[in-house]
């Protein structure tokens, strides 16, 4: 995939990621204040937005929980890395399973209260999952691009 498409993917993920912190960004750009409820509603489609599980940054709260932020941060990091060295090797689906296990176990253990919910463990397990997820998403896009070229 050419650099311009990789930049586009990164910019889109960055825009989505930045939107999570719209409340904090509003502290610097007051005009954005009017968009906050729309952003809250939009992001509520992808996360439960539990007030105990969100991050507080500067004067605002994040619009997603720690785990979701971890997932999108993982996607963002790998897409950023993809700008400088394009991904050529793709892991097997087993890797996705292994990397999603910590997240699934963390969800399971905190749900049945074996241990207390921790934002750090939620973020880290989400980060692991998100960073591997990007490879599969990117591979899907490459396959799509190749199919469109063949036609």
């Amino acid at each position, binding site marked *: 995939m050419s650099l311009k498409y990789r930049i586009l993917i990164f910019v889109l993920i960055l825009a989505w990621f930045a939107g999570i912190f719209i409340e904090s960004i509003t502290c610097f750009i007051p005009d954005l204040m009017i968009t906050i409820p729309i952003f809250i509603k939009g992001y509520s489609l992808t996360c439960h937005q539990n007030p105990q599980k969100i991050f507080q940054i500067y004067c605002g709260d994040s619009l997603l929980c720690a785990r979701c932020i971890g997932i999108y941060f993982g996607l963002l990091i790998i897409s950023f890395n993809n700008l400088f060295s394009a991904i050529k090797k793709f892991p097997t689906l087993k890797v996705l399973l292994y990397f999603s296990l910590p997240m699934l176990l963390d969800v399971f253990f905190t749900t049945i209260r074996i241990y207390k919910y921790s934002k750090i463990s939620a973020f880290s397990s989400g980060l692991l999952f998100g960073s591997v997820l990007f490879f599969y998403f990117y591979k*899907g896009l490459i396959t799509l691009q190749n199919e469109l070229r063949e036609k």
Partner: protein
Amino acid sequence: MCGFGAGVLQIVPIAKSFGCCLIIPFAAFFSLVLDKKANPTIEKISSKKALMFGLITGLYAAFFGSTFDIVITFITKSNDLVESFPQFQQMINNFPFSDELKNEVLRLFQNVRNDILNYGFSFIYAFSIIMNNLIVNSIFGIAGALIGAQIINRRPES
């Protein structure tokens, strides 16, 4: 069918918190699985097909999700926005900005809130719900289907 199911689940509060961001991608994946079962073939699912399935599932989910949200708001004359207005008011007041700007923003949302409380419908609310659902559900549907196609294609039986 998957889009309809996802649209309904998006409205149900418990299912919504449980499914989180997985509802739409899973619906898109499930639509591919159902298609594979309905039309058995040894051919792999193309990414183009996955893209279309993901997009259609996302659009259906957006359509039904928005419709149910608007209809429920119309019947109950209440929704998340109305219920969370006091918290929103508090949040706006905590921002280090001029009172004029704060009042302007609050006035706008007070109008939306009043429309919902009085008539059960607000054009601004309905428009923002539809746009949000269309954009978010389409993207998540496409992402879910593109990843889902790889999972289905790697299965031994396909």
